[in-house]
């Protein structure tokens, strides 16, 4: 055998490393996934059996056990859809549907496509996350620098999170959609009706997402130790200088951790906001129509799409975190 690239790539060492990686991380993950899928199928069979047995009795059919099991896995409106049903639905409503469709001579988003709904949920989520993060950072800066704010704002921030978002969402929707300024903007043609619908969703989303940022940012801004702060005092640094050159950079790792919690909360906020608004588009709307018509498979596929969106957002923030922290000299 001659020296070359191939032996280096597939040599015993790299093979060992590959086996190590598989047995170290991939295998356990696969095992857990397999276990969940198995339990899920088991649950489907058990929970959907009643309906199948009921049908057999009503129609006077004869079915073997295997046929009964097969039927429980493929019902049209199962109590608990099976994994393959959910997966098929996800596939059919994303890849299997055009994203745009022609309507009244106009090319519009296709409401049969889940990506279309995800899009309508993601924008308010990102907007709400941005508003919430900005407010959260602002509040945290105030809390750290003013004792009065520390004493007064924090209890309110905590109290705000104990109010069920489902209770407050309709109020926000009603108030915001009747704001004269907003209606005026629509009348003037500055913003479209769709954009107007986005505003209450983003606000409710920001209501949930500001809190993790406040908590994390306060901890981060207070993370410099006494001698780090003393050093600044020896330079007679102003509060502003101490903030920009010490507190803010020290808070960045805390901030990213909060961001990841916060963006997931923002997504939940948007979906909840879609429930009482009578929204026609968005994952929340999809969940609601699914439950109106007993389309459990549709509900589950919308739930999975929401989870995929949340994961994608968190992964995106994680990537941003790595880039930023690397530039800030964190050892990798």
């Amino acid at each position: 055998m001659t020296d070359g690239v191939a032996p280096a790539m597939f040599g015993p060492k790299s093979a060992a490393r590959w086996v190590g990686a598989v047995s170290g991380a991939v295998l356990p993950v696969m095992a857990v996934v397999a276990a969940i899928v198995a339990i899920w199928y088991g649950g489907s069979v058990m929970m959907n059996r009643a309906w199948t047995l009921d049908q057999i009795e009503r129609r006077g059919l004869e079915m073997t056990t295997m046929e009964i099991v097969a039927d429980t896995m493929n019902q049209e409106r199962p109590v608990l859809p099976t994994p393959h049903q959910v997966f098929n639905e996800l596939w059919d409503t994303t890849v299997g549907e055009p994203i745009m469709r022609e309507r009244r001579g106009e090319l519009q988003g296709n409401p049969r496509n889940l990506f279309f709904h995800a899009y309508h949920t993601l924008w308010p989520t990102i907007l709400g996350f941005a508003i919430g993060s900005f407010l959260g950072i602002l509040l945290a800066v105030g809390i750290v620098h003013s004792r009065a704010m520390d004493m007064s704002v924090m209890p309110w921030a905590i109290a705000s999170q104990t109010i069920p978002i489902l209770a407050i969402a309709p109020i926000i929707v009603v108030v915001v959609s009747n704001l004269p300024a907003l209606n005026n903007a629509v009348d003037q043609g500055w913003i479209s009706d769709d954009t107007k619908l986005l505003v209450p969703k983003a606000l409710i989303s920001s209501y949930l997402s500001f809190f993790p940022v406040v908590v994390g940012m306060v901890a981060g801004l207070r993370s410099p130790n006494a001698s780090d702060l003393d050093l600044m005092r020896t330079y007679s640094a102003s509060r502003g200088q101490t903030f920009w050159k010490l507190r803010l950079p020290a808070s960045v790792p805390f901030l990213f951790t909060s961001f990841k919690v916060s963006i997931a909360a923002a997504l939940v906020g948007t979906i909840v906001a879609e429930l009482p608004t009578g929204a026609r588009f968005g994952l929340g709307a999809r969940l609601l129509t699914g439950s109106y018509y007993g389309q459990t498979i549709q509900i589950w596929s919308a739930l999975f799409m929401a989870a995929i969106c949340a994961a994608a957002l968190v992964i995106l923030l994680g990537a941003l975190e790595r880039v930023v922290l690397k530039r800030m000299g964190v050892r990798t």
Partner: protein
Amino acid sequence: MHDAPVIEAQNLDLTFQTADGPVQALRDVNLEIGKGEFVSFIGPSGCGKTTFLRVIAALEHPTGGTITVNGMTPDEARKSRAYGYVFQAAGLYPWRTIEKNIKLPLEIMGFEAAEQERRVKNVLQLVDLEGFGKKFPWQLSGGMQQRASIARALAFDADILLMDEPFGALDEIVRDHLNEQLLKLWARTEKTIGFVTHSIPEAVYLSTKIVVMSPRPGRITDVIESDLPKERPLDIRDTPEFLAIAHRVREGLRAGHAYDD
């Protein structure tokens, strides 16, 4: 003509109010430090040596007596950039490179960019860290980090260098090396240095004046003027003169402890 002292403390008292009642950290401290002196403060924990250094730096404020730094109050002295302070932990900001860490005081004090560059280059050379400016702190050893922190304290040309157990966390060999370097640096820059330490050999090796302190309440028990030559190789520590001073320091420390038992 006799120069006015750089640091002068008279009847200095400092009492901390704690949850367990008042704690007298410093009592009746009288001390003069002249220009260009290397003064070590030695004593057991709680003897107020760090507190005294912090009073000079205006990080703590005395509850009685007077203290002047360059003829001013410590607060005024700090505003006029009288001193650079080196903490026990190097305290380099981990998100800044060594170069940027040294620039930190220069940015705060408003030096121009070109001047900042010049000074960084200059002090990196002084502490023997040329070529490490672009590294992040974690990429340097503990001793190198502490040297970077000394460079940071030197960057804005303060006359006084206050060092609070700067080598306390380093191993013996690194410490010897840094002590040697610190003496050279002192000779070259002619700064006045206040140096807090736990180590008798370190205090004797470095200092022109050794202030022995004892705890509860923190006070000065002895001030020893060292007559060792300014040029000090490491093996000076085996000479009888050195051992005599070390002995006196040890006696002073023991006397301070006597009525503890």
